[in-house]
């Protein structure tokens, strides 16, 4: 109980820090394009959870179909890669400063890592392959 509470508080702190970094990277340079990075990283765990539900709903039928799970993994990988690549592209064409680029990337990684760790520790127990 105590460990869980401390962990939750720590994770909430890290999540807030991540969002702070992303919002600072936008507000300091008066350019709100890097905010899209936060949306990308927040959306990144969604495909896996949705697709694992879809595959699980299929469990009654004898034809097990792993296509949903694989598609979810593919989408997750592409969303994470988009979160990294998008600020780099913007910084390369000098739409945003390189400082804003690195701040938004690190903020997004913090947000995504928080979601990963949270779902790994407190998410539906027993299923070890939750990303």
């Amino acid at each position, binding site marked *: 109980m105590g460990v869980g509470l401390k962990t939750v508080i720590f994770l909430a702190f890290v999540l807030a820090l991540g969002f702070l970094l992303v919002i600072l990277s936008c507000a300091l340079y008066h350019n709100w394009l890097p905010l899209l990075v936060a949306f990308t990283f927040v959306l990144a765990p969604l495909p896996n959870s949705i697709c694992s539900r879809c595959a699980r709903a299929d469990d009654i039928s004898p034809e097990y179909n792993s296509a949903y799970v694989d598609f979810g993994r*593919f989408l997750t*990988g592409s969303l994470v890669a988009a979160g990294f690549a998008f600020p780099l592209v913007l910084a390369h064409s000098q739409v945003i400063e390189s400082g804003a680029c690195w701040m938004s990337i690190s903020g997004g990684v913090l947000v995504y890592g928080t979601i990963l760790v949270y779902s790994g520790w407190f998410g539906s127990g027993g299923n070890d392959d939750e990303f």
Partner: protein
Amino acid sequence: MSVPRAPYDPRGVFRINLPHFEIGPRARAVGTYISGTLFTLSFFLMIDAATVSKYSRPPPDAPYDTVPVHVAFVDWIPAICSTLGFLVTSLLDKSHLHAALSGDSWGTDGPAAWRARVVLFIGVALMAGGLAGSLTVLILKYIVNGYTEYIYYGAANVGMNAGIMLSGIILWVSQSGSDEYEYQLTV
């Protein structure tokens, strides 16, 4: 007996058998993640070239010149071909392919094997055509015309199509392994 016998084993979908990779469910998951990452990264390489071209300015010693070359629709045609080829090859059901490969009675040289062959051929041809088209764009638009300082646009195009092809290969290899359910059954 007038019809000559086929010189290859007619039970297989392919004349040269596909190598069958024995990888576990873990490698399958990791391979799928890597494939998705690579697909998006290669797309962002092309988007990067287009964005740089959109925001490019004339050189500082001649600020009123126009930028001589931009990324136009022509540069995107190989990307469209590669993406279509990637979709076609990854939508092909590998279990059907293996059923046809293993010589089941309904999939030997029947319509299923024939269809699988044609679909796979179209997909791989589209991907290879995309790669060749990106090389064509690089040479004809950037090297022959002498835009050596804008060669990044063409190089990014080639890198993007090669990345999509590599992503398709990784996805194919990781999908041809056994998935978790089959693995549990066999174990």
